[in-house]
């Protein structure tokens, strides 16, 4: 059983890293949505594989934008550089 001090220290650390907990899901879902939409459009418009590739690319760009928004401290937040 951890000491109370250890528990509060761990809880405080978890609060600090909370924005990081969704990174993996956000990335996978954003890329997945891009792939699914691209694949579906390809089948509908018979343009395979170009819209799928476009979907992958858009999904990746979206995923990285969302990633950097989560991990970079907002301007003026006063965090350490």
């Amino acid at each position: 059983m951890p000491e109370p001090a250890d528990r509060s220290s761990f809880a405080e650390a978890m609060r600090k890293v909370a924005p990081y907990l969704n990174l993996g899901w956000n990335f996978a879902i954003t890329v997945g949505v891009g792939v699914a939409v691209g694949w579906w459009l390809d089948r509908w418009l018979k343009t395979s594989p170009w819209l799928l590739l476009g979907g992958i690319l858009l999904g990746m760009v979206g995923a990285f934008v969302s990633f950097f928004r989560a991990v970079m401290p907002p301007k003026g937040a006063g965090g350490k550089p």
Partner: protein
Amino acid sequence: MSDLAQGLYFLRPELLLSFYGFFLLLLSTLPVFRRWVGGLAALGCLLTLGVVLSFPYQQGMNVFQASDLFFFGNLMILDGMALFFKGAFLLAAILSILISLRYLDTEGVQSGEYYSLICFAVVGMMIMASGTDLLSIFVGLELMAICFYILVGYLRGNRKSNEAAMKYFLLGAFSTGVFVYGASLIYSAKGTTNLYQLAARFEQGDPHSPLLILGMILLTVSLGFKVAAVPFHMWAPDAYEGAPTAVTAFLSTASKAAAFVAFVRIYAVGFLGMRDQWLPLLAVLSVASMTLGNTSALLQDNMKRMLAYSSIAHAGYVLIGIIVMSRPEVDTMQTGMLSLMLYLMIYTFINLGAFSMVVMLRRENLAGDRVVDFSGLHQRSPMAAFAMLVFMLSLAGIPATAGFIGKYYLFAAAMKAHFAWLAVVMVLNSVVSAFYYLRVVWHMYQKPPVDSVRYAVSPGLVAAVGICLAFNLLVGIFPETLIELTRRSILMLGRAG
């Protein structure tokens, strides 16, 4: 000799160190041996280093020209570069263990698991150094990373250590996902994840599909995280500050060198046929890392954060070596490789020395990791101040130190490959970096001491500082031996088998 037998023969260092790690784990359960585990771990790494060094001697110097170096179905290779870096990882591990011996007592976390984890992390690094397939590199990368996630959070009662470990773990897991995604795209585009087979396909004139380029970009992102290159550096300052200082020393040197070996194998071997695509990408990463790393380091008051940003800048310098390798001329490519290997070896000894000094200032009532904690060091311990002076000058790249030799070779390689603009950016950044390194020197020699408590030195720490200091001075003044050793190692970067 069958492929399996040859593989096991070539894998002796990894096998020995793995068994040794488990042996230490077992030994640490017996209270009577607990205080010896650290020393035994250093001895185990030394034995493994002996096995690594025995390869060139057992096979004569032919090991540097042999063509049949691949094993385990071309998943791994034992070439000069692999041997060179395996030696570097083991040396870094030995020095890290030496500085950990008393430090862990001060922090109250002395245990055998710590040393076992260091051994396992080194095994991961050695697998990475030999990896010739994205999958074998991945296995090594993960073995190393998982050990580091635990080591960074080793101070369980410390909030900063917990936070650092969680951030490092989550971002590390993310970058792992990105690596696997990139590898899967490459496999779907080319039908292989073997780097030498990829290189052979490019030589046969296979076109570059968009999927392949996306895969290559994702691998760059993932490896960018591992070497803490801008803009994938956000984990480094927090992880370096929160981790136990001895772990930070190991993380900032050996783990970075291991990630750069993977970088070299992937780009200078597998993706050499796509050099026009990755060259601009790495150039942007390099310039951004040098510039942002150095300018951010100027603002730091905490020594560990300052060295973290400095290591981000140094990752930018090392990337120049890989950029130079994009040139088709064999001679220029080898110059890039030589400069990169030389720089990583030298940087390992400088940074371990600098972190050893931070460990020395750590006492039960003082973290000792602020720049002001170095105030008046010259009056209280002239030898310690001299050692730190050499490490800081070496990091800044001042002549007669090892750091100068490393930077000079990178500069010369960039000029030879007609990347003069990159060399100029590097020199300008070195000038900026001199400011924050010399600030530490100014505190040591011009400021009064902060307190009169004696510094916490131990035989292990003194030995580690002494080795790093001797290396920095000797290589700074007589660099020929190290340069010749590195030159021999690169003669044998395997060709497509």
